[in-house]
């Protein structure tokens, strides 16, 4: 534990430097924020049309308003759990030898990347908070009443855990670079599946049983589906507690997995030379 405390200032510094780096790419930032809304808006409109055409109040256990709120909320979840380029970056560092910099300097690659990503996420969330708030305000009619303090706490916890699961899952994928030369194909496949399996495309409840149960048993639901459901108030009481505990367990699993893969990978890496 003391080792962590000692190392903390170093990683905080990395956090600060990374934050600076992000702010430098200004045009990138402004443009990207505005453009990120478009697919959500079109998806919302599509679902409006679907409900309209069905002439039903509720589909897949979701009322129309809930569905729209869900689509907005998964965005928030993904803000925390998406790790673009993380797995690819790790695999690339292994492949072209830049991994060496982590071995030669007194720095732990995983801790470094967590600090780096944390900084990026903070910058991103800080700058998109305003436009998102605006968007949510415009759509406020669709949202259920604001959740109570307990549920809200649960929501925030689930988001932070989603960051961890997202990070360590992608990191573990990147570690595949120690064993396979070309990981990009694997990453494509996982990325494509993830979009569907995390619930970002549509809630797994829409998929007929038994497939919906399978999807809900997987950890990927925590990346988008679960936090959104918590906020919507569709996961209450003991279900919420159970869900969060399971999320903690999954996060721990992925942390352990990533660290193990890293250790084994390093052993293999040094055995074969850079």
């Amino acid at each position, binding site marked *: 534990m003391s080792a962590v405390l000692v190392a903390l200032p170093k990683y905080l510094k990395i956090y600060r430097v990374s934050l600076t780096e992000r702010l430098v*790419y200004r*045009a*990138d930032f402004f*443009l*990207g924020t505005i*453009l*990120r809304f*478009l*697919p959500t*808006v*079109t*998806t919302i*409109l*599509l679902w*409006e*049309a*679907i*409900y*309209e*055409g*069905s002439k*039903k109040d509720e*589909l*897949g256990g979701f009322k129309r308003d809930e569905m729209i709120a869900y689509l907005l909320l998964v965005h928030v979840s993904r803000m925390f759990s998406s790790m673009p380029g993380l797995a690819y970056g790790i695999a690339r560092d292994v492949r072209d030898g830049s991994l060496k910099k982590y071995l030669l300097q007194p720095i732990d690659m995983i801790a470094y990347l967590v600090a780096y990503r944390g900084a990026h996420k903070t910058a991103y969330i800080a700058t998109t908070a305003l436009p998102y708030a605006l968007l949510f305000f415009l759509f406020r009619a669709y949202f259920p009443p604001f959740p109570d303090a307990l549920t809200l706490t649960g929501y925030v916890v689930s988001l932070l855990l989603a960051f961890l699961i997202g990070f360590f899952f992608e990191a573990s994928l990147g570690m595949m670079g120690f064993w396979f030369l*070309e990981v*990009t*194909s*694997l990453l*494509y*496949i996982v990325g*494509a*599946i993830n*979009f*569907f399996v995390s619930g970002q*495309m*549509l809630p797994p409840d*829409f*998929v*007929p049983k038994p497939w919906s149960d399978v999807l809900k048993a997987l950890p990927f639901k925590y990346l988008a589906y679960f936090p959104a459901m918590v906020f919507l108030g569709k996961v209450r009481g003991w279900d919420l507690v159970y869900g969060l505990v399971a999320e903690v367990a999954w996060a721990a699993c992925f942390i352990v997995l990533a660290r193990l893969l890293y250790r084994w990978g390093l052993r293999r890496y040094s055995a074969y030379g850079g």
Partner: protein
Amino acid sequence: MARYLRLLGALARYGLARELAFRGNLIAKVAVEGLWLAILLIFYLTIFQNTSSVAGWTEDRYLFFVGCYFAMAALVETFFLSNCNEFADLVRSGDLDFLLLKPIDEQFLVTCRSIDWSTAPNVLVGAAVMVVSLWRMHWPFDPLRLGLFVAMFLCGLGLAYGFLLLLTSASVWLVRNQSLYELWWLFSSLMRYPREIFQGRIVTPVGWFFSFVVPAMLVISVPADVMVNALDAKTVGFTAAATVVLLVVSRKVFRLALRRYRSASS
């Protein structure tokens, strides 16, 4: 001209030879594309399990729309997308110079340099889906409609290409451009659904914007409309005109970008 077509043929042949050298990777990419199509089809089926029409599009007609989308997106991804994405790197590394030295139109080289064969099968899949949907709705064969469809499909392709070219040219001015793949994903998300979904007080103007100012939503909607829904001469005319305008404007912007590159590079 014939010369450019021959060159394109040569580029396609050598591109294929190069991809086949990495067979495993190619197969994986094709598999992923197949997986993605499967997901979109599952989505489509799920929707129509719950409703019988979406913004006036019934199940079979919507399937035609989906097939049209597959084919169009696949054409853009096969011929243009990876080339345009590389442009930012070429600008940064200065390797764009090599393209500028050749006695070939720069726009052609930048946008058509290599062919991504992994998405090529999707064009056929998209066409197959369209054929299946036509068969299911017992579509009466109408050569006029078919001809108009092909024309509008090409216009849609032209619109998508023009937009892609504008985005590509932007890399010269923006120091670090958003990955073009991301921007293409955004554009293609606009064209993924029928534009009729933009109903309602607030969104109709937005729909209007993306149909007539930034004509993203016309790309698939119009050809699909022409084939399976009622014909609307005004929209068809507008689409054709918009395509021409966009192609001309995007070419001008591209040349401007090259000028800027050549003034700023060292």
